Every structure is written in structure tokens, then in C-alpha cells.
């Protein structure tokens, strides 16, 4: 199949026949290499994982709603919190960040007909799907699923302490999803480097695409380390090596170094794509260009660079790491993150804000992320971390952050969903869903901060009847119920709005190229393209009277 792009000569041209004939039904799904269909498969799978992982979260919260509760056995509790964390990080947040909307939107935003390597892209999805099946199948083997936490610390994860197929399935699943991520990283880098439309200089790329480029570079830096570590772990478990065991002369804490060398960049691999989504949404619904475009790009690159030097802030209490180095680097990362927050507010400042559902979720993201980012700064200071490490304070910190990411992701689905499906979602249900999610997230995390400061340890199935603990846990569980209701509302909204509200090509008066093509875009994305002279070509085309943006001029000679 050859891709042909025709320039925009006559705006009213009837769409020429550019139909794609191929298999239909299941065979189409199995054989497709179209980035939009692959991205849609990613989206559906990731949302399914969110629902499954969310179900486990509700089980955890029921267990913790009272001290000495017997809802789950200790063994079940360990499996449930391990699989909750593993599903959410490896199978939901990651693929949702760099596989779902990224796959669909990045090629369109730069005017490309597809990803650079369409078949590799399909392979990424199949590895993700089979990896997910592998991990979940742990529940069906004797001994049950993995139960050593989503971080798989040595020596708990060795053959003596975690015998059974569940642990090996966990390792195998991460091998598959790890390669899936690496291939996606390669693909996005190549697409952005080689398939941009004429005039689309790097500094005219939408911030979402920029963030995915940087995310992809981070994937290539981080994921191979995890994959190597998993192979070592497997060898320790089955081939008698002693890389992570003291008895054989190995070093258990080496696993933590390897894991977090992947693990901290991973949190930015999860975060940057959602930063990008919000950075697209806020300016569009404020009717302004993004505030501080180059500052945003610079902040993203700085975050990526620094994120390789902060991993051991997860290991402060091991007593074996260089505290000042990791503390300084972690505090430094707050600076570019702060620039981003400042620019999001700047983008809204004096804009004509349209409080659509997507915009509400984006604002909810900014507020919730601010809470998580600020408590991250507390944890980056070793004296404070010694006090709060392995308590619910840490759990609260990262749940503030990841609940923010969930809001960012849902903002993205409300914003770009119509582009892929051709139909809008119901705005009223969307807004109700937002308030449940936003209030639920705060009601869920804020008591956990207090519990952490009062010393409640994480990863415990039962807790003593200390004054106030039960009450705070009940509030947290109530918050979790609100979040659960918001998820149900999302599903309800999809069903209610099914093919009801046609979107048209450009429902939000968008800035970037995806709003120039049809909804859904044709095979190979474009019938025609506008001239690209700024970072908002579609807006320029639709508003010829507006003055051109100055920083859009290109510099490379």
C-alpha cells in the first residue's frame, strides 16, 4: 500500500476516493497495521485493565475499612495488592500513556500517514496483550498470583520465598510488555524524526508529540535495564545463579538499583504523555496559544535528563546510597515540573475558558498533580523520608500523582475520542463523572497522608485499633467508592452516547493537525494538509485574520 498525500489546493474539494479494501471483522483486527486501529485496541485493553485493577483496589479498601477485618486472607491480600499495583503500572498506566492515544494522535499531529514501522507497531500491541494475559493467568495456577509487591524486591522474590508459577508468570509478563514498550519507543522516535510533514519543524510540533518523543527516549533508556534485571531474577530462581542472594555472594540491594533505575524514569514515562495531553487541552479550551511553548519543551527535556539520576530516592532507608546526590537531583526535578504548572496556569490566564468535560478533567489533573508533586518534594528530603518511608504517606503521594494521571487520561479521551470514533460523549454525564472522580480522589488520598504521618505501615492486611485509624480508613474507603462510581459513569456515558452526537471534523476549534482531517481520519490520515507555519496550523488556517505567532519561525539553516 502506497501512501499519497495531496496538498491543500481547494478547500471544498470533494473527498476523493481513497478507500482501503482489506479484510473485515476479526481478521481485520488480527492483521491490521493501521496505527489508529492499533491505538484503539490499546485504548480498549488499557481501560479494561483499569477496570480490573480498580476492582482489586476496591477489594483492598474493603479489607482495610476496619481493623482486623477478615474479608481477605493474608495470602489473598498479598496477591491482591501485588496484582493491583502491577496491573495499574505495567498494564494500564504505561500502555495508556505511550500506546493508546499516543499511537492514534502522534502520527496525525505531525501530518504522517502512519507510524514509521507499522508492523512493529502491531507486534507491540500483541506483546502487550499476551503479556497482560500472562500476568492475569497467575490467578489460575496453583500457589496463586505473584505476591511480593509490584517492585519484586529480592530476596522476597527468590525461589525459596516465592515458589510457584505465579511469580514466573509475573516475570514472563514483564518480559513481554517490556519488549512491547521498547518497540513502541523505537517506533515513535523514528516517526517523529522521519515522517513529519513539510514545514513541521521540531519547534512547531504540538507539545503532546514533543512529550511522546521524550517519553520514547526515556523508554529506550530505562526499559532494557528492567528487562535485563528480570532475566537475572529468573536465572537466580531457576538456574542457580546468585546475583541477588547473599548466600552465593550476590547483592540483594542490586535488584533495587536495577529496578528503580527503570522505576523512576518509568514514573515520568507515565507522566509526560499525560502532561502533553493536558498541555493540548488547556490552551484550546482557553482560546489561547500555549503559554511558554519553548519553556514547556525545555522543561520536558530537563525532566527526562534528571530522571535518570534520582532512582535511589526510593532507597534512602537502605543505608547504602549517596543521600546528598539523590536528594539534590530529586529536588532539582521539581524545578522543571514547577515551570510546567506555571505554564498551565499561564495558558488559562485571561483566556475565555470553556468548561467542557475535557477541560474540567484537565484542571482536575493540574490541582491533583500539584498535591502529589509537593508531597514528592517532602519525600525527596532524607530526614523526612526516614520518617515516612513504607508508610501510607508514600502511598498517598503516588496516588495523588497517579489519580491526576487518570484524570489527564480521561481528559484526553473526552478530547480526542470524537476524533477517532466520530462521535462526542455526553457532556453532562462527563461533568458528573469528573466531580465524582475529583472529589473521590481527594477524599481517598488525604486521609492516607494523615495515616502515614501517624505511622500506619503500607502493605499490611490488618492494622491495630489505634485512635482514629479506623475512622481515617473509612473515609479513604468512601473516597475509593466515589472513584468506583465515576468509572461506572464513564462506561454508562459510552453506552448512552453510542453513535448519538456526531462530532464533525473540528468540534473544539482545535489548534493542531488532527483537527484538520475528518473524524475518524481516512486510511493514511489526510486528504490534504494546510501550510504549517506555527505550532497551530489548523487554527491559523481557520483564523486567517489573527496575527501569526512569532516564535514559530524556524531557525535551522
Amino acid at each position, binding site marked *: *500500500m*502506497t*501512501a*499519497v*498525500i*495531496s*496538498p*491543500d489546493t481547494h478547500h471544498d474539494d470533494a473527498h476523493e476516493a481513497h478507500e*482501503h*479494501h*482489506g479484510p473485515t471483522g476479526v481478521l*481485520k483486527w488480527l*492483521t491490521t*497495521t493501521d496505527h489508529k486501529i492499533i491505538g484503539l485496541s490499546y485504548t480498549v485493553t488499557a481501560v479494561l485493565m483499569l477496570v480490573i485493577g480498580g476492582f482489586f483496589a476496591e477489594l483492598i479498601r474493603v479489607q482495610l475499612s476496619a481493623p482486623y477485618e477478615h474479608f481477605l486472607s493474608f495470602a489473598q491480600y498479598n496477591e491482591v495488592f501485588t496484582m493491583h499495583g502491577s496491573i495499574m503500572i505495567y498494564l494500564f498506566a504505561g500502555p495508556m500513556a505511550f500506546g493508546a492515544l499516543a499511537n492514534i494522535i502522534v502520527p496525525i499531529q505531525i*501530518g504522517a500517514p*502512519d507510524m514509521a514501522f*507499522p*508492523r512493529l507497531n*502491531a*507486534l507491540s*500491541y*500483541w*506483546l502487550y*496483550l*499476551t503479556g497482560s*494475559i*500472562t500476568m492475569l493467568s497467575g490467578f489460575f495456577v496453583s500457589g496463586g498470583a505473584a505476591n511480593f509487591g509490584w517492585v519484586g524486591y529480592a530476596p522476597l522474590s527468590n525461589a525459596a520465598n516465592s515458589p510457584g*508459577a505465579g511469580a*514466573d508468570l509475573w516475570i*514472563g509478563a514483564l*518480559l*513481554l510488555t517490556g*519488549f512491547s514498550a521498547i518497540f513502541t519507543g523505537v517506533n515513535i522516535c523514528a516517526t517523529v*524524526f522521519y515522517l513529519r*510533514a*513539510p*514545514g*513541521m*519543524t*521540531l519547534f512547531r510540533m504540538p507539545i503532546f508529540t514533543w512529550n511522546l518523543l521524550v517519553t520514547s*527516549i526515556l523508554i*529506550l*533508556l530505562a526499559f532494557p535495564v528492567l528487562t535485563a534485571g528480570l532475566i537475572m531474577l*529468573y536465572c537466580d530462581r531457576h538456574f542457580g545463579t546468585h546475583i541477588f542472594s547473599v548466600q552465593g555472594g550476590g547483592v540483594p540491594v542490586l535488584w533495587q*538499583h*536495577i529496578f528503580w*533505575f527503570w522505576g523512576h524514569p518509568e514514573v515520568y514515562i507515565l507522566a509526560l504523555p499525560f502532561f502533553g495531553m493536558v498541555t493540548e487541552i488547556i490552551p484550546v479550551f482557553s482560546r489561547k496559544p500555549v503559554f511558554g511553548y519553548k519553556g514547556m519543551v525545555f522543561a520536558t*527535556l530537563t525532566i527526562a*535528563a534528571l530522571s*535518570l*539520576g534520582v532512582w*535511589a530516592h526510593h532507597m534512602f532507608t537502605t543505608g547504602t*546510597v*549517596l543521600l546528598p*546526590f539523590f536528594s539534590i537531583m530529586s529536588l532539582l526535578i521539581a524545578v522543571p515540573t514547577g515551570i510546567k504548572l506555571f505554564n498551565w496556569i499561564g495558558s488559562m490566564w485571561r483566556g475565555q475558558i470553556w468548561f467542557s468535560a475535557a477541560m474540567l478533567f484537565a484542571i482536575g489533573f493540574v490541582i491533583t498533580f500539584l498535591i502529589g508533586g509537593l508531597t514528592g518534594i517532602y519525600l525527596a528530603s532524607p530526614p523526612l523520608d526516614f520518617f515516612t518511608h513504607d508508610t501510607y504517606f508514600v502511598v498517598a503521594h503516588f496516588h495523588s500523582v497517579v489519580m491526576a494521571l487518570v484524570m489527564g487520561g480521561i481528559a484526553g479521551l473526552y478530547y480526542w475520542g470524537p476524533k477517532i470514533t466520530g462521535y462526542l460523549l455526553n457532556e453532562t454525564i462527563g461533568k458528573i463523572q469528573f466531580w465524582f472522580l475529583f472529589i473521590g480522589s481527594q477524599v481517598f488520598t488525604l486521609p492516607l497522608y494523615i495515616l502515614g504521618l501517624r505511622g500506619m505501615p503500607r502493605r499490611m492486611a490488618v492494622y491495630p485499633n489505634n485512635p482514629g485509624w479506623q475512622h481515617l480508613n473509612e473515609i479513604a474507603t468512601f473516597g475509593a467508592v466515589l472513584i468506583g462510581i465515576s468509572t461506572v459513569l464513564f462506561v454508562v456515558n459510552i453506552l448512552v452516547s453510542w453513535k448519538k452526537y456526531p462530532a464533525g471534523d473540528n468540534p473544539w476549534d482545535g489548534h493542531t493537525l488532527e483537527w484538520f482531517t475528518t473524524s475518524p481520519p481516512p486510511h*493514511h490520515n489526510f486528504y490534504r*494538509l494546510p501550510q*504549517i507555519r506555527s505550532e497551530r496550523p489548523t487554527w491559523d488556517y481557520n483564523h486567517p485574520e489573527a496575527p501569526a505567532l512569532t516564535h514559530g519561525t*524556524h531557525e*535551522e539553516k
Partner: protein
Amino acid sequence: MKLEARILLVLGLFFAIMGTVYWIWSGENAGGMMIIAGGLLGFLPGSYYWWWSRRMPVRPEDRDGDVTEGAGFVGAFPGTSIFPFTLGAGAFFAVLSLVFGFWLMVPGLGLIVWAAIGGVAESRRGGTQ
């Protein structure tokens, strides 16, 4: 292309400096090694792009290119292909063989080899519809 190269080279340089400082200051080998390796990931593709960017004309996407310059033939893209699925299924069996017994490697490798041959042959034909 120059800018792409510069981004990777600057990242590589940053990791090289950070890695050296960390390694000397901490004396901890695993982390030092991993940051330096990260630097290489900046330098290798970065210097390759740099080398190329000096030997090719500035591309339309690196300047105020006109959309008409991108019109016409963009490249051959495979329309549909079963081989990514075959390869994925092969990898799935290969991983399951780590858990449930080595015999599963037989279907795993079989599918992988089939996909490799089939995929290459497909590319030679210039893709499919």
C-alpha cells in the same frame, strides 16, 4: 535533522557528566555503569544523525517547507499483515515455556521462524494491500 542530533548529543553529554560525578562520588558501580550506558544511548544515534545531517540537504520538514513538497509518494507501507500476530504468539509461547516447561519452546520457535520468513518475504514483495 541537526536539531534531532543535537538533542541526543546534549542528553548524552549530560549523562556522561552526571554519571562521572556520581560514579566517583559514590563509588557504587551498578548505577555509575547504567548512567554511562545511558550516555552512550545519546551519543551513538546522536553522532550518527549529526554525521548524516551534514551530508544531506535541509529537509522540507526542517525549514519553512511547502506542503506541496510532501505531495505524492511517501513510501510503501504494509497494508495488512498477519506476521506481527504470528510473531507475538510465538513470543507468548516462548515466555510460557519459561513457566510451564521447555517443550512449549517448540511451537514458540516455530511461530517465530515462520513469522520471520513470512515477514521478510512480504517486505520483498513491497508489502500487501
